[in-house]
């Protein structure tokens, strides 16, 4: 595109889209710096106010909720699920892509088919299972069902199929590697971008999940940060949304940093996992 006019159009389009994408974030941070009265005013406040520290203080030392504790809970849940998701998905993906075992074709079809079943639909029986196991109000209730998913397995299979050449594994076999050694020494180092992509997606989804945790976690010490957010304003005089926004800023910050840090690897993994193979 040599034409300067076209370039201008291209830049304008993309800047409009980027503005559309970040404006709600901007507004979230604006409301976090305002008082409840200032939010409900005409014209709406669209620039930063002066109450950020005060609101943060009310969030962190909230009388209803130990906010830092719920951040910790979310951190534990997201980290454990992400780690196990990466391990189990890559092992299964490796098996489906590169091992010849009985029933593998049918089993892979099964994995694909199971992606069609919407998880919310099984909410009631899942709740019954968790209560029978006596896991209600226990972080396990969120962690265990999320430890590996069909999407993760399929994503890893696609990636390994594209990125790990058969010849490499054959060479490893000739050197006397067992399947486990092939996995650790050859597969794992090759699929680092896929780990970054699936890891970020998983961490993000678990961190932001609301429906399932709200069903199984009830007591204040066991909440995830998303559940804590909507309870921040319960005891305020009138529902003070600026507290929820200040809390949201705190709750989004870890994801923002993780994503910023792994941005490049994340993109690289998407390319291989969805397009090739």
């Amino acid at each position: 595109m040599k034409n300067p006019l076209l370039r201008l159009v291209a830049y304008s389009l993309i800047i409009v889209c980027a503005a559309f994408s970040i404006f709600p974030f901007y507004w979230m941070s604006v409301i976090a710096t305002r008082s409840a009265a200032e939010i409900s005013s005409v014209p709406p406040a669209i620039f930063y106010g002066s109450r950020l520290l005060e609101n943060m203080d009310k969030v962190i030392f909230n009388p209803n909720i130990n906010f830092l504790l719920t951040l910790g809970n979310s951190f534990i849940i997201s980290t454990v699920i992400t780690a196990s998701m990466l391990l189990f998905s890559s092992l299964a993906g490796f098996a489906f892509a590169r091992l010849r075992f009985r029933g593998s074709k049918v089993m892979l079809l099964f994995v694909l088919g199971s992606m069609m079943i919407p998880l919310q639909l099984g909410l009631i029986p899942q709740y019954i299972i968790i209560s029978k196991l006596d896991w209600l109000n226990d972080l396990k209730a969120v962690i265990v069902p999320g430890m590996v998913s069909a999407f993760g397995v399929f994503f890893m299979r696609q990636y390994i199929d594209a990125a790990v050449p058969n010849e490499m594994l054959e060479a490893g076999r000739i050197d006397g590697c067992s399947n486990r050694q092939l996995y650790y020494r050859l597969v794992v180092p090759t699929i680092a971008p896929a780990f970054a992509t699936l890891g970020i997606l998983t961490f993000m989804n678990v961190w932001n999940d609301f429906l399932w945790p709200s069903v199984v976690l009830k007591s204040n010490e066991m909440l995830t940060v998303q559940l804590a957010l909507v309870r921040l304003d319960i005891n305020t005089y009138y529902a003070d949304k600026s507290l929820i926004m200040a809390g949201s800023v705190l709750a989004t910050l870890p994801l923002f940093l993780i994503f910023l840090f792994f941005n490049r690897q994340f993109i690289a993994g998407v390319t291989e996992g969805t397009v090739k193979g």
Partner: protein
Amino acid sequence: MEIMPSAKPSIRKPRIARRHNDNLSGLLYTSPFFVLFAVFGLYPAIFTIYVSLHKWSLLGDKEFVGFRNYRLLLTQDPLFWKSIRNTFIIWFESVPLQLVLATIMAVLLNQAFLKWKGVFRFLIFLPNITSLVAVSLIFANVFGVKYGLINYLLESIGLSRIDWVVTPWATQLAVSLLIIWRYLGFHMIIQLAGLQSIPNDLYESATIDGASRTQQFIRITIPMLMPTLLFSLIIATTGGLQIFTEPYAFMSSLVGTNIAVNGGSSNQVLTVVMYLYKTAFTDRSFGYSSAIANLLLLLIMLFTLFNAFVVRKLRD
């Protein structure tokens, strides 16, 4: 981890040893998924089919009613049909525009002259990482009737306010905008990946043959991008038919959970999964709710088959 000793490079039977090893490792490596899926996926699915043939309020006994739940749903429940209609309206208002925009953005981000690619990509993807609690509150704030930004802007240019809470088309439009906002970056990244996988020599030889940039775009880029576009479409369709959290959280922030459960005062954004949720957790009709779940699953399967059919047609 592995119970069997690893395959020594035996000269006589390497193939048999390998097959034996692969059988064992294969089962071992895939078993975590299948165990978890059996407990938290398959069992609930079968249970849902079983419950859908009963009348059950979770506390009392299950009363067998055969296919009555399905018959009532299909023939005597206007709200069910309305929820299907709403789901499709929201889908049509969000997905096509979203995919077109995502593709345009991806094409632009793939141009050599464009600077700060990484920054734009990051900013447009950002909505995908936010929590819905925050997002729904912000959107409720933007679309607020009294103090909302949009109504303020409408009034300041001399137009009249829109009541986003009770006007059906307006609520549906607001939810669709929220969905576009949230997933635009996701689809853009997928399209970008598709664009980058198109081999460069295709363009080079086209340039040698004298094809213009526009011709190259129509003859090479679009056809080569088809598989990725279909991938996006499939995800957006199966996800779109199950849309729940966005309309529910948005309505909760706007008017409170009591009205949100019904999808607004005139059920204008009640989607199928929201209706399922309402019949289960508000009305306590778990049999009825399970029947909705199964009908939805059927609908999703039909669409997936239809998609697969279209993909095959396009390939031929």
